[in-house]
């Protein structure tokens, strides 16, 4: 499998404090990849660097073979990489439909004359965009609230809306920052289903999340971060059974020989 996202020796420090140090990993084309690690292990900094919200000190980032190192966030997005935010961001005063319409990628080819005069080209794209927005809102189960301003949504509903907006931009790769934190536990499986469906439709995912069950049920590969660099990676099973991962999270790795026989 070829990599849609390739990170090579990424480093980033804030005022001399190393947030990410020599991190390298790949996200395979068509995969759902998880990124986990304790708080402060550099996950957020890493995705900020990838998505153009932070400049890296060293390293290289490629999206589908194209170098996207240190280019503006908007350019990264136009190259086909869309991210969501941990502290969910939506346009609070806009209704759900407008929230998605802003994000739609199909308007990018139009010039300002088309937009101001509302030429037939613009109206065609506009109508198609609205249909697609309604479909995506239906997909995340928010149709009932389509005309409501986003500010009335719950935290979890905003996360779903943010995901729909990310889909609206027609990306190749979506980076989700804690997509189910704050989402009603009964709906977490639904979210996993939605992501699987989008994945089958051809979108690759990199997911930062603390909900291990969610990650294990969804991901093909899990990358573990500790203290600013990659600790290990592998299938969800391999990673969950890795004593180093337990050590990173809990700081008390049981030594293999000290374990009771039935536990090994």
């Amino acid at each position, binding site marked *: 499998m070829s990599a849609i996202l390739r990170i090579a020796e990424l480093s980033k420090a804030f005022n001399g404090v190393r947030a990410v140090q020599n991190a390298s990993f790949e996200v395979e084309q068509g995969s759902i990849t998880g990124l986990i690690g304790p708080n402060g292990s550099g996950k957020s900094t890493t995705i900020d660097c990838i998505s153009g919200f932070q400049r890296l000190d060293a390293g290289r980032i490629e999206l589908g073979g194209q170098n996207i190192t240190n280019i503006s966030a908007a350019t990264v*997005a136009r190259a086909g990489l869309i991210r969501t935010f941990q502290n969910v961001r939506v346009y609070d005063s806009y209704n759900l439909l407008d929230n998605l319409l*802003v994000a739609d990628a199909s308007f990018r080819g139009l010039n300002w004359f088309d937009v101001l005069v509302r030429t037939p080209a613009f109206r065609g794209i506009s109508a198609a965009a609205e249909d697609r927005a309604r479909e995506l809102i239906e997909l995340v189960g928010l149709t009932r609230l389509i005309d409501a301003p986003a500010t009335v949504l719950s935290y979890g509903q905003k996360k779903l809306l943010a995901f729909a907006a990310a889909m609206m931009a027609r990306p190749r790769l979506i980076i989700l920052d804690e997509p189910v934190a704050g989402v009603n536990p009964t709906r977490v499986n639904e979210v996993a289903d939605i992501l699987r469906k989008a994945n089958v439709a051809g979108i690759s995912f990199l997911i930062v999340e603390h909900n291990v069950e969610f990650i294990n049920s969804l991901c093909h590969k899990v990358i573990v971060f500790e203290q600013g660099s990659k600790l290990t990676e592998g299938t969800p099973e391999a990673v969950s059974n890795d004593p180093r991962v337990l050590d990173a999270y809990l700081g008390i790795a049981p030594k293999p020989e000290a374990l009771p026989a039935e536990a090994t």
Partner: protein
Amino acid sequence: MTQPRWTLAAVLAAIIFLLCLPLLTGSDYFIGIAISGLIFLTAAAALNLVYGYAGLLSFAQLGFWGVGGYCSALAVMDFGWSFWAGVLFAGIVNLLLAIGIGIPIIRTTRHAFVVVTLTFALLAGLIARDWVDVTRGPLGIPGLPAPSLMGFSFSTSARFYYIALVFALIALAFLYSLKTSRIGLVLKAIRQNDPLVESQGISPAPYKLAAFVIAAVVTGMAGAIYAFHLKIIDPSFLDFYYMQTFLIIVIIGGAGSFWAVVLAGAAMVVLPEALRFSDELRMVIYGVVLVAVMMFMPSGISGWLENRRIAALRKALR
């Protein structure tokens, strides 16, 4: 915010009323107020584009207003151009000026933006006062002639009123179509959440610059027309009073709401006059009204209505 269905009817009624206004009153005084009202309203709507839509609190509007006024006055008095060419000249100078100032400052932080635009406005006032060779300094340029078109002279207030009315209607129609277009949608998205807009592949800078430049051109042309209404221009044309008026209209109406700002503009011009029944208390009452609106509706009338709507919706969803 969705508009009531009767918006179109109300707008048509207002336009017809405004067209007939000079027939309803013979008083130059009232016509004068109407002219000021239309021009302040247009300048406020332009400020609403930068502040209410793009989220940029720009004090540069005062500078553009003054530059526009001086440009048209100098074009007519020194270059011997017509009033119409003068207004156009004011627009073009402001266009270039706003691009020149806008490109570097659009990338600054919000606070720096306020300071830089304020500095520009103060600098414009300083130049008007001290560059005596061009601006005639504190004495100003008196005796600006009445505009004329193909032999027809707009020499009375009632005639000049129609220049202000046509300008205001064209400018407002343009700003309205901008606001309701996708450009308006993106601009207001930028104001709400700048990083989210970027993460969706839209660079905010060109949108912000466009809003800044368009507002500068409209404000400059409004200033150009206003100078000929006053028939004199001097450094008091750059008095902070004008900026304050534009800002009050936008804030009372509610930044980011087109119709609320238009209505607030009309109300803010009529109110001080309507209060003339008591000359001693006039400004006191005006001040009390302003303070009361700010205390009870800190995000303006439209913001207050919107918050009530959201509260009702939240209740219904529970």
